[in-house]
């Protein structure tokens, strides 16, 4: 009995320290994780503590506040996500069948890939646009909070071992050519075709604190909202709403939805299953 009581108070104590840690990070560095869904942040913080051999949350807070280099590492750990090329192939198939034709009516097409992580889905989008002969008219702004992920995205170098999965995904997504046309393989890695990168601008952007920077015909933000609490989700969806032109498209992750958002009635469902929406007047 005594053991479980002790455990309980330990958990509560940790909770208080955990909130204090996020507050001091916000205060000192301006990175705001206080409205992130807690479970993931906690997991990543614990992971970081194990890797850096830090014993307590209190100890971690002290280190982060005085050591900027450690803080950089911490931010990388806290904001890293993984994806794959043509993740959820049917989402990309849906863009091809239901969105591309509408986009083609614009002389210049601006697309924002918000939370692009290491870039796999940005290049997937570029491939589709190329195959639909739109790429030359497109500017893709690919942003992420994580500088290291952005750097990988910018380089466009991925493990050769992933190509088998990506090729399958590409075919399921309605790919029209041989997927190997889009990369060069060398020493266990592949380099994504340079022509795909021409119209992509990679830039840092923090969805929790930064504003809109343009008007877009399409925004995709996949598997980012799952990391935010309801309040922050609402804030970010409002940001997307303000950044889209009327009849502009919003693409979310497979398990994300506008259902509980206050902006729900300002969007029309283009594809319920693939989570593609259109801003309506």
């Amino acid at each position, binding site marked *: 009995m005594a053991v479980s009581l002790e455990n309980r108070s330990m958990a509560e104590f940790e909770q208080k320290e955990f909130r204090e840690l996020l507050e001091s990070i916000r205060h000192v560095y301006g990175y705001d994780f206080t409205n992130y869904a807690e479970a*993931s942040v906690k997991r990543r913080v614990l992971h970081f503590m194990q890797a850096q051999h830090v014993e307590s949350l209190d100890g971690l807070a002290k280190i982060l506040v005085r050591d900027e280099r450690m803080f950089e590492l911490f931010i990388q750990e806290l904001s890293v996500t993984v994806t794959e090329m043509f993740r959820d192939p049917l989402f990309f198939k849906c863009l091809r069948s239901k969105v591309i034709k509408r986009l083609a009516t614009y002389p210049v097409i601006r697309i924002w890939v918000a939370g692009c992580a290491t870039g796999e889905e940005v290049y997937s989008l570029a491939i589709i646009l190329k195959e639909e002969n739109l790429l030359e008219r497109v500017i893709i702004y690919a942003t992420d909070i994580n500088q290291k992920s952005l750097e990988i995205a910018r380089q466009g170098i991925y493990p050769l071992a992933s190509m088998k999965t990506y090729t399958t995904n590409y075919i399921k997504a309605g790919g029209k050519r041989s997927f190997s046309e889009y990369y060069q393989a060398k020493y266990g890695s592949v380099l994504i075709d340079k022509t795909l990168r021409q119209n992509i601008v990679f830039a840092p952007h923090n969805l929790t604190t930064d504003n809109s920077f343009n008007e877009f015909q399409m925004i995709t933000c996949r598997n980012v909202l799952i990391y935010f609490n309801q309040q922050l989700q609402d804030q970010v969806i409002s940001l997307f709403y303000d950044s889209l032109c009327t009849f502009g498209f919003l693409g979310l*992750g497979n*398990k994300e939805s506008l259902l509980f958002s206050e902006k729900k009635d300002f969007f029309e469902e283009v594809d319920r299953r693939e989570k593609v929406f259109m801003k309506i007047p």
Partner: protein
Amino acid sequence: MKIIIIGCSAGGLQALSQVLERLSVGLSVPVVVIQHRANEHVNLLEEVLQHRCGIKVKQADEKEKIRPGIVYVAPPGYHLLFENDHTFSLSSDGPVKHSMPSIDVSLESAAMVFGKALVAIILTGASDDGATGIRTVRKYGGLTIAQDPAEAQFPHMPQSAIDTGCVRFILPLAGISNLLAARRFTSAHEEK
């Protein structure tokens, strides 16, 4: 709130069917299933389990309030986590031990939220996912159970959990099924 989490991998469907078939409307706790699965586009697992189980089976949704009397199944391609307000959240942090959903990730998250109110059960599987999670569950005072490896279709996973020394009960499927159907998990005997 008490909560039951069942982790399984290879051979899981058959084992789950047997464990869940006796659950009835009186169930006063939520049951969460973490089954390794391919990222398919139809919810076949949920449909099959629903067919064999007398209470509602559904895929866990992001931000969904966890309610008693429902069997939730972790969606493919994400980790399933638990928030302090007893809602689900999802993460896309990448596979752990080649698995997403990972049983370890879910158990560690649940242990921190539910503490001694958590019952964690490891069934058949060919990986050692769940072993780390079982340690954490035990550390936070939860009840840990593994399927008897002698009868498991793939004994490696329950055996790995048992090898941590943190498993409290080793039971055959029939015993686990009895436990879930027992009075302590039905509304007639709800604990605060």
